Structures are given as C-alpha cells and as structure tokens.
C-alpha cells in the first residue's frame, strides 16, 4: 500500500477538506518526515484555508508555519484540480481546496502554471523534492510515478458538511 501525506484544510466556516498525496512505501521514513513540512510549504502559498491537521497516518504540528486560522475568503468549495499522467499512462487528479483565486489566469478557469508558487508545486509533482537526504517523489495510489501535470483548472466542489 502506498504511503501518503494528508493535509486537512479548513475554510472560514470551519468546513474541512483533506488533500492526500501518495508515495512509494519504500521511501525512507527520514525522507517522509522531512518531506511533509516541505510539501506543506508548496501548498500553503496557493490556498487561503487554515491547516487543521497534517500527517503520515499520524498528526504533525505545523502551526508554527501554517496555522489553523483560515483567511476570511477561504472556501473549501473553491478548488483547483491538477490533472496528472503517471508512468503507466494512468490519469490521476489532485484537488487543492480553498484555492486562492489570484492564481487563476484572469478571465479564465486555468491555473497560472507560470506563477512562482504554482510552478514549484507542479515541478514537485513531476520531479519530486530532495529532503532529508533522499528524493520524495509523488505517485498515484497504485504507487505509479507521476511524470506530467497535464493541466490545472478551477473545480467548484461540494461541501462535505452540508448546511
């Protein structure tokens, strides 16, 4: 079974949505332990929600760098969907909730892939990040390596906690 990071993001109403990113389960724990903070640093600039919890099947306190208080504009329904292709040719999708609208190309539903923060995140998805002395490379839930982010677009989603 693939190892995953999870980040539970909340909007200004306290509604949560969880981001999960999978890795090969042979990845060294030291790399995973250093990597979860690094990957939070890639996601945080692009979203307006607060971080409730994060972990590798256990919680990690990242409140020093990403606190639990969401910006007033945060909304878990406002998502950006990153569509990715894996080594095996499978399509994989990753949604970031409370996505900051300033990262969309004006007048479109397309995420600006040239933006500094977005480009760093996309390159991380495709090439991984070196932390803790090792390479942390995302996969899909089959542990199939991601080789290309095909597109990233606006995706209005549903609240899990209906009101």
């Amino acid at each position: 079974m693939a190892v995953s990071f999870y980040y539970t993001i909340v909007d200004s109403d306290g509604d949560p949505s969880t981001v999960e990113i999978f890795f090969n389960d042979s990845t060294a724990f030291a790399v995973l332990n250093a990597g979860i903070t690094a990957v939070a640093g890639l996601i945080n600039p692009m979203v307006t929600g607060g971080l409730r919890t994060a972990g590798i099947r256990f919680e990690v306190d990242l409140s020093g760098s990403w606190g639990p208080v969401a910006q007033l504009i945060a909304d878990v329904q406002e998502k950006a969907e990153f569509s990715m292709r894996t080594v095996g040719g499978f399509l994989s999708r990753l949604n970031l909730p409370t996505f900051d609208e300033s990262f969309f190309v004006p007048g479109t539903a397309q995420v600006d892939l040239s933006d500094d923060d977005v480009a760093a995140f996309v390159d991380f998805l495709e090439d991984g990040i070196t932390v803790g002395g090792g390479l942390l490379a995302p996969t899909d839930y089959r542990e199939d390596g991601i080789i290309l982010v095909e597109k990233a677009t606006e995706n209005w989603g549903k609240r899990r906690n209906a009101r």
Partner: protein
Amino acid sequence: MPDRMTEQQLADYAEASLPPAGTPILYKDWASGLRESEHPEALSYYRHLKKQGKVKATLTTDDDGKIVHTIERV
C-alpha cells in the same frame, strides 16, 4: 511596442534567457527577469521547454526548511 512573435519564437526567447548548462538559476529569478523583458508572455513556454527536455527542475529545502526551486538548461 515589441514585435508580435510566433509561438516558436517565444519558446526560443524563453530558452535563450536561460543561463548556460551547468548554471542553475532560481525559478523565481528567471521568471522575474522574463516578466520584466520585452516579451513577458514567453514565460508561459517554460513547461513547453520542460516537456522538450531542454530544462530541468530541482526542488530542495534550505537550512530553514524553506523551498528552494531551481531550474537549469539541459
């Protein structure tokens, strides 16, 4: 007013703005330079260059845990 360029010219312009192979540059510095150039629209061809294997990206963290995102001409 800069001359209107074709897509290939813009891709070539972006590629030409990269330092020589073996000289990594922070993505944000390279992007900032292009945004301030005569053809800021060339920045959107970064991913085109990457798909063609003309540029590679490296992500690491510094001693403070901050993300370091560099690119390098291949």
